């Protein structure tokens, strides 16, 4: 192969798709095509194509579409609804930034994005298209505001805003620059002589949870855990962040966003606890997961404070949790759920109930009494 002469022009930078599109739109593209689509030589579809494609500046340069351009922009100027939120008399906007509010009422749960407008009187979250006020509260009603660093399931860490305001439930907010927003709110409230609590009311969170406990019931352990929430309405199964609580009577999982427990079992209902490594999908891949199985064949029970999730009678149900201390939880629960026994075949410890009703997860041994039920497939180690 001949060596190339150094005088030949070389391409230094790589071309990108956007560069290509830009050049095409700059010059303009004219397509003049007659196409026939045929099968077995018989024309079946005919297309006469005459098209001119170009960036608007180029079009205008050639005198094409000038009127239409003018009319479109004219219409927009005349008819566009107010893109700014409706303000009160003497209300001025101090700060504007992108943000979102977590809306959870009934089965509809979603982040609603818009723009925060911090005025001299209120904090607003307004969306311009379609126009609507997504969230609103005045400074007099704000009691506390805290920023918490949270890990999204993708691994990204974000600072989320918790806002306590009368008389509503705590608001869960996302802002483009959370610290800036918080400082601005703090500053404004100080100027108005209004108090603002800053340490996050984890006590208030517990207050809500406290209301769920029965007589003589106490929380013995709790930890941040992700729970694979079952499908609800149009939303399919999803991993959701929350807190797992162990009391002296039961195990329940509290959803931060919905402010209620989505999983709740009395100890008597739990048949087995184990740790499995599962592929959580996406970029997270494999993680140890706490698997809690329950069998309601004989005691169909309603989750005490959430009648919409009745534990269905019949069959084995499993709940999955992911988090940092999965192994410790498995041990603690295993001890509670039943006395521990050792598997006759492999001698590894497991809760008695689980051994008898489901078999050994380490070696696959099953009790002869499991004749009617199919032995569960042993998860790969």
């Amino acid at each position, binding site marked *: 192969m001949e060596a190339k002469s150094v005088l030949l022009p070389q391409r230094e930078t790589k071309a*990108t798709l956007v560069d290509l*599109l*830009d050049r095409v739109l700059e010059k303009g593209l004219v397509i003049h095509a007659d196409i026939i689509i045929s099968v077995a030589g018989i024309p079946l579809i005919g297309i006469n194509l005459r098209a001119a494609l170009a960036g*608007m*500046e180029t079009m205008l340069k050639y005198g094409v579409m000038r009127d239409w351009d003018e009319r479109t*922009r004219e219409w927009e*100027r005349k008819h566009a609804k107010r893109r700014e939120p409706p303000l009160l008399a003497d209300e001025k906007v101090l700060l504007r930034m*992108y943000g979102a509010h977590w809306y959870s009422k009934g089965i509809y749960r979603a982040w609603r994005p818009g723009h925060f407008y911090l005025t001299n009187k209120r904090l607003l979250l307004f969306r311009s298209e379609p126009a609507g006020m997504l969230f609103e509260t005045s400074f007099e009603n704000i009691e506390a505001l805290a920023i918490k660093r949270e890990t999204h399931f*993708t691994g990204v860490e974000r600072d989320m805003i918790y806002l306590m305001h009368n008389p509503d439930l705590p608001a869960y907010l996302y802002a483009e620059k959370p610290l800036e927003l918080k400082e601005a709110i703090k500053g404004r409230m100080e100027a108005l002589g209004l108090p603002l609590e800053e340490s996050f009311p984890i006590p208030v969170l517990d207050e809500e949870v406290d209301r769920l406990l029965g007589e003589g019931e106490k929380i013995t352990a709790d930890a941040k855990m992700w729970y694979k929430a079952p499908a609800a309405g149009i939303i399919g199964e999803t991993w959701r962040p929350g807190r797992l609580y162990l009391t002296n009577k039961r195990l329940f999982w509290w959803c931060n966003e919905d402010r209620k427990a989505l999983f709740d079992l009395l100890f008597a209902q739990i048949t087995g606890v184990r740790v499995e490594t599962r592929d959580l999908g996406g970029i997270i891949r494999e993680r140890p997961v706490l698997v809690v199985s329950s069998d309601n064949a004989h005691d169909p029970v309603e989750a005490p404070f959430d009648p919409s999730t009745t534990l269905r009678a019949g069959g084995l149900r499993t709940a999955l949790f992911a988090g940092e201390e999965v192994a410790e939880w498995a041990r603690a629960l295993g001890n509670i759920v039943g006395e521990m026994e050792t598997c006759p075949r492999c001698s590894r410890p497991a809760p008695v109930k689980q051994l008898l009703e489901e078999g050994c997860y380490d070696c696959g041994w099953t009790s002869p009494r499991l004749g009617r039920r199919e032995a569960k497939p042993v998860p790969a180690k």
Partner: protein
Amino acid sequence: MAGIVDLDENNFKQGILGLVISLVEIIRDALRLQAFKRMEGGSLTEDEIERLGEALLDLDIALDQIKQEHGITDTVQQVRDGLDDIVDEVLDKMLDPDRWAEEYDKQVTR
């Protein structure tokens, strides 16, 4: 030519979303360049320029949010890099007549 993209087969939904967002980004970039041309061209009023700028900025933020929310930032980057590689390769061949001749010979002798 190697495969365009290296999508995660196990996560079909993510893959589709990744492709869609990649396409939206490419269109957004093309629109942004055209927007700048119009702004400089002098045919827009001050108000229109501001509106256009804000809308494009909002679009940027919204796309970033979507990518973050679904963990597809890397996937989208891979798709776009893959497409850019193809464009670069094709242009390279077209601009360098020797290589073009080489390719043509390869085709003919097949």
